């Protein structure tokens, strides 16, 4: 176990290093520079700014500087938000995105799993169709439609919830639901499929033959086994959801991390983009790492 963890940790570090390196050079192959904005600066002024920020030096030299700063946890100053460090931007925006993501997961996970199990148990019956309907709906309605729809009903018409912004717990309800629905749909689908798969397994027949009650079979033999694919899905899902979503954050005016993923790349804010990639990378690798360890607990057949 300990040996496995050490090995995985080592691989994780190499993964992050590769990610940072490839992204660094890929990012710099994009044409243009961060100082070419709507306020058109003359070429001389751009050169001056490039020199000031050290972006004119040889790429390898910049890479080494970047990497050595990164190891010390310093991701530099944003090129657009000139007086703020990438670290401080992530520090203020990530907790907001993460809090929204956690709320959505807390809503989607139990309901999604429950609907998945229910529809698998009542396969072909009305309950099943209802669950499948919800999950198809959730997967196919884009979040900007759902978000606007919720705003229209609950804020503009019924006037019981605020339209947007991120201040009181009340403000979090609509974005949480908007974000949760698609998660819920995915979870329902996967849970349903995986429940159906285990139903035909030999150990379920054996359990039945032993004379176990239906509920005992469902809880101890089916759900536990069906959870393995959910666990696999959950790692990246948690990582993605906590990182924020561009669309929902935009519609509900939530000052999260999501906007920066898009804006930093279109604006060629090198330091910000790199900071986000590395941060996301670390988060994703960690989530997968935890999932791999968790396999061992959920499924005794998997030895780590």
């Amino acid at each position, binding site marked *: 176990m300990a040996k496995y963890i050490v090995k995985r940790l080592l691989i994780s570090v190499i993964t992050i290093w590769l990610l940072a390196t490839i992204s660094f050079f890929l990012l710099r192959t*994009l*044409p*243009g*520079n961060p100082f*070419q*904005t*709507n*306020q*058109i*600066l*003359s*070429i*001389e*002024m*751009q050169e*001056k*700014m490039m020199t*000031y*920020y050290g972006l004119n030096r040889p790429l390898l030299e910049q890479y080494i500087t970047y990497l050595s700063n990164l190891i010390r946890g310093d991701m530099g*100053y944003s090129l*657009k*938000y*000139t*007086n*703020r*460090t990438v670290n401080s*931007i992530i520090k203020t*925006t990530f907790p907001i995105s993460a809090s929204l993501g956690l709320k959505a997961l807390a*809503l989607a996970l*139990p309901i999604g799993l*429950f609907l998945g199990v229910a529809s698998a148990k009542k396969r072909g019956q009305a309950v099943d169709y209802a669950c499948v309907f919800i999950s198809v709906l959730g997967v196919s309605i884009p979040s900007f439609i759902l978000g606007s729809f919720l*705003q229209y009903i*609950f*804020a*503009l018409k019924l*006037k*019981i*919830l*605020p*339209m*947007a*912004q*991120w*201040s*009181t*717990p*009340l*403000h979090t*309800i609509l974005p949480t639901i908007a974000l949760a629905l698609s998660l819920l749909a995915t979870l329902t689908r996967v849970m349903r499929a995986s429940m159906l798969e285990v139903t035909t397994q030999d150990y379920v027949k054996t359990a039945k033959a032993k004379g176990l009650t239906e*509920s005992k079979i469902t*809880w101890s033999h089916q759900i536990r086994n069906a959870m393995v694919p959910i666990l696999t899905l959950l790692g990246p899902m948690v990582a993605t959801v906590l990182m924020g979503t561009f669309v929902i954050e*935009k*519609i*509900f*005016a939530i*000052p999260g991390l999501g*906007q920066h993923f898009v804006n930093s790349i*279109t*604006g*060629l804010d090198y330091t910000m983009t790199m900071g986000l990639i590395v941060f996301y990378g670390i988060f994703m690798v960690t989530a997968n790492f935890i999932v791999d360890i968790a396999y061992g607990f959920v499924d005794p057949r998997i030895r780590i």
Partner: protein
Amino acid sequence: MKKKIALALVMLLLLAMLAGCTTKGELEDDTKPGISTGAQEFVFGARNDMMTLDVSKMNDESSALVMYAVNEGLIRYSSDQVVMGVAEDYSVSEDGTVYTFQLRDALWSDGKPVTAYDFEYSFLRTLDPETGSSQVGSFDSILNAKAYYNGELTDASQVGIKAVDEKTFEITLIKNDPFFILQLAQGINYYPIRKDYVEQFGANYGAGPESFIGCGPFTLTSWAQASSIVMDKNEKYWDLENIKLNKVTQLIVPDENTLVGMYDLGEVDAVYSISAVQTTLYPDHGNKIGGTLQYLSFNTRSGHVLGNENLRKALSFAISRESVVAAVASPGSEVADSMIDPSIFLVGVAITEQYPNSTGVAPSGDVEQAKAYLQLALSELGLSSASELPAITYVAMDSTAHRQYAEALQARWKDTLGVNVTLSILPVPQAIDSLLKGTFDIFLVSQSTGVNPDTLLKNFTIGNGNNYSGWENQAYSDFMTAAEASTILVDRLSLLQKAEAIILEEAPVAPLWLPGTAYLARDYVKDLHYGRQTGSIEFNYVSIQK
């Protein structure tokens, strides 16, 4: 059995959670956050957050808007008039090169006096190469400023920026510039800075309300990045008696539909900048134009087909500016037929009366004339039909408006002249790269028109970095040089007018329109002004009368 109970409990919890939410929602019904009551509080919504509070580095409209309220320069624009700010009065030396400002007894929001040294420190800090400001160009007319920011001069005391004593500030120009005071009033980088704050916060200066101090009518109380900015009345402000608002809140809501919804609900009292689609739903919206001119820049460099003057004219005459403005442009936009912003006023007279120049293109276009120019162009190029023309590439920035303009113009040229234009839509940095490197044939440029006609026209002289079309006309450059050297306003204007006539005749650029801005504001918001200095809203003297 235990499991069943557990399941039931979980479901119960979830239900309780959902139920809890709704009841809470109903309770809060009539106390919506952000709503302004009669208490002189003003809430407005904008799409973008400000980038920085560092005067030396500020270059965006949203920062300029807030800075205008929380800080104050020597003089400023207020309701389109130049008024005194921290300066009480100023005098100009006989040769017009030395401006001496007498400062009033203004205070910073912490009670310390605003001194000439704060201005001297601010201006020199912006120019200091160590600061890394991209805005140094706005100090070019000041003696030795350019040499200092380029690093050729290291002695800051030789720059024409000097605090004579606590209350006297002196600016020395390279030469007499009749437009300097307008420039100083309009610029967004001429505010004072407190040295002790910069020293305390270093590179993080201006990143938040705690690392910033101003001397304007309001103080910055909080700035929740990408969410809200709260400003309270500055009790130390010199003109306090005329400031009626106690509190101003800017909510940052990137999505337009959401923002307009909040306006409907009364969560915001005003919305800055709404799109053409929304204006149809709000017929009583306000409009303003001016500040920016959009024109087509044709690449006239050798090897580019638009080096042909008649072809450029054919393209310009074919455009129905009026239809594009009606269908695509932002609300309140106006057709332009010259390189002058008609909203500029000089010595009390509209600039359009002093500059009767025009391209001669009717707002609806002149297709017959365009065809005639095309025939001339084709015969000069030795071609028999428009389909034989070499490829013409229109490079556009990837934004909804720019894409729509490009598509409308492309279709128009194809339909009226049979000229094929290829669109190349690129992300902003790449598109600008192409513009500056001259790898385009047609590019729609939006450029600030500034406060005087020089601002735009001086870009087209030979070798100017902003002369994107690569157009070289000696006579034009000579007129511009003469105009700049001229110290008498009337002479200067007549020279500028001659220069403008040349550029309109040779058409390296085709003026299109002046984009407008539409805004929403409730009736009870009095004296809200859409100003030139910030390019956006001025709420300093607003009062709420419900």
